[in-house]
């Protein structure tokens, strides 16, 4: 298929294709980070993860409307405000859900799956009742549209770069919180031995609640960022859920590094396959490969061998 093209054309395409893979990687990672916290650290299977993301997207939409109506001069910067709001909105909902639902189910992980599935149905219907059944279009500030012209043939989408930078920042923040902060140590202590952590004076309830809220908040930011590349509707969240879980599981649930590596592997595989095959087949082959590898290595890519 490359016979007819000049070398420089091909070079440009490979550069952009590599970049497309990187954007997909950022998207996957951003989707998966929140879940990596909730599922990886807490063992809770949050099937409503997509709906938390969409909450972030709706918050972004509301913020953009507010800025358009009341602060048109500051519209260029509304996105940053929106992301912060999305974080807190999804985080707050997360806290509420943890309090009302999740904390009763820590000993029954499979049941969290069913309960959060119910939650996702409720949230979808709420979005539909509140925001309408149609999709909403989020207007982006002008500077986020378009692309950098690197050479004649290579264009780098600005919003792609934005998502990548955002992903790097959030990943670093999450890594810092989980692995270097005092609070992160408490989280891991609670995960490893709830009773003991409680006995040494860690407020396990609070740690649970804030961990869950953090995961949901990160999902909200992800949803906010995805308004740049995807749709915002009551059921949009469902599009992400299978991919997200596979990324986390494939990486080895408890390992942040694993999540990063698995997002990278899956995104590169899919993006490359998409270039050579049709979109549908690329998806099927990627999923099959993941399932196959998980069967061979059920603990995921990066799992510690632990003594039980």
């Amino acid at each position, binding site marked *: 298929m490359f016979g007819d093209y000049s070398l420089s054309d091909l070079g440009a395409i490979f550069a952009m294709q590599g970049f497309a893979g990187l954007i997909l990687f950022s998207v996957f990672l951003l989707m998966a980070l929140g879940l990596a916290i909730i599922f990886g650290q807490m063992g809770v299977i949050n099937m409503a993860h997509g709906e938390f993301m969409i909450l972030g997207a709706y918050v972004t939409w509301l913020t953009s409307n507010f800025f358009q109506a009341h602060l048109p001069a500051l519209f260029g910067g509304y996105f940053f405000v929106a992301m912060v709001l999305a974080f807190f909105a999804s985080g707050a909902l997360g806290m509420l859900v943890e309090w009302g639902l999740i904390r009763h189910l820590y000993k029954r992980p499979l049941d969290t799956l069913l309960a959060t599935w119910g939650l996702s149905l409720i949230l979808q219907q709420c979005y539909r009742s509140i925001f309408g059944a149609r999709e909403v279009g989020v207007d982006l500030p002008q500077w986020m549209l378009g692309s950098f012209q690197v050479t004649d043939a290579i264009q780098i989408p600005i919003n792609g770069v934005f998502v990548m930078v955002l992903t790097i920042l959030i990943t670093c923040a999450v890594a810092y919180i989980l692995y270097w902060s005092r609070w992160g140590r408490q989280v891991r202590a609670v995960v490893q031995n709830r009773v003991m952590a409680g006995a040494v004076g860690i407020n396990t309830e609070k740690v649970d609640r804030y961990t869950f809220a953090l995961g949901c908040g990160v999902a909200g930011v992800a949803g906010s960022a995805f308004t740049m590349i995807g749709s915002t509707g009551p059921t949009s969240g469902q599009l992400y859920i299978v991919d997200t879980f596979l990324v986390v599981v494939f990486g080895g649930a408890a390992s942040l590094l694993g999540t990063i590596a698995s997002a990278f592997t899956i995104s590169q595989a899919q993006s490359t396959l998409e270039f050579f095959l049709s979109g549908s087949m690329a998806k099927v082959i990627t999923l099959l490969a993941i399932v196959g590898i998980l069967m061979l290595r059920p603990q995921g890519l990066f799992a*510690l*061998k632990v003594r039980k």
Partner: protein
Amino acid sequence: MPIGHLQKDFLLAVEGLTVSFDGFKAVNNLSFYVDENEIRVIIGPNGAGKTTVLDLICGKTKASSGSIQFRGKELTKLKENDIVQAGIGRKFQTPSIYDDLTVFENLEISYPRGRSVFGALTFNRDSAVRERVQEVAEMVFLKDRLGMTADLLSHGQKQWLEIGMLLIQDPDLLMLDEPVAGMSVSERVKTAELLNRIIKGRSVLVIEHDMKFVEDIAHKVTVLHQGQVLAEGSMESVKANPKVVEVYLGH
């Protein structure tokens, strides 16, 4: 200890056994031998690798290197259920019984018949099964609890139930991980009595911290420290061993 391979027919021969978890050698080049009808107690400070040794023998953990031979059969390559069928029974540290089933059903499941899928599907609770269950239940002091859900038993009764489940399997080598931990004094006495009764005709490998209990039952004691054998011999000789004293008091 040299790996002198004596041509004596040991029941269990563990040689050069090593396992490492991410570089940490929980068991390091360990060798020991158990005779027919011997009661061997393994003692050692926390983290010495005692439970890991049992895990390795029964297949729960795979060895990094070394061999475990049971009646001349290499166990390190076998699956857990095949190891059991070869004649090894294992009791876990915390009572591992089926909370949702009755005492009768708990014992029945361990009855060594109908272990394949279709065997289990067509398994018939005939008089042989019932008699054997009654017999074992009597041995482990649970005769009048047969219809009760196992969940409702006391801690000590759960330990006995698990021992009963092993008895009904009738293994040649019985491995017990802290069988009297968490028991009251009277339960402890009863358990010692029980063990003394059931060891007839089989070998037993016990992990225990309770020195009084160890002295009561042990033929031979192996002291583990940092995954290796520190000392081995009769209880008296081990107690007199300065290295053992150092390890125990040093901690």
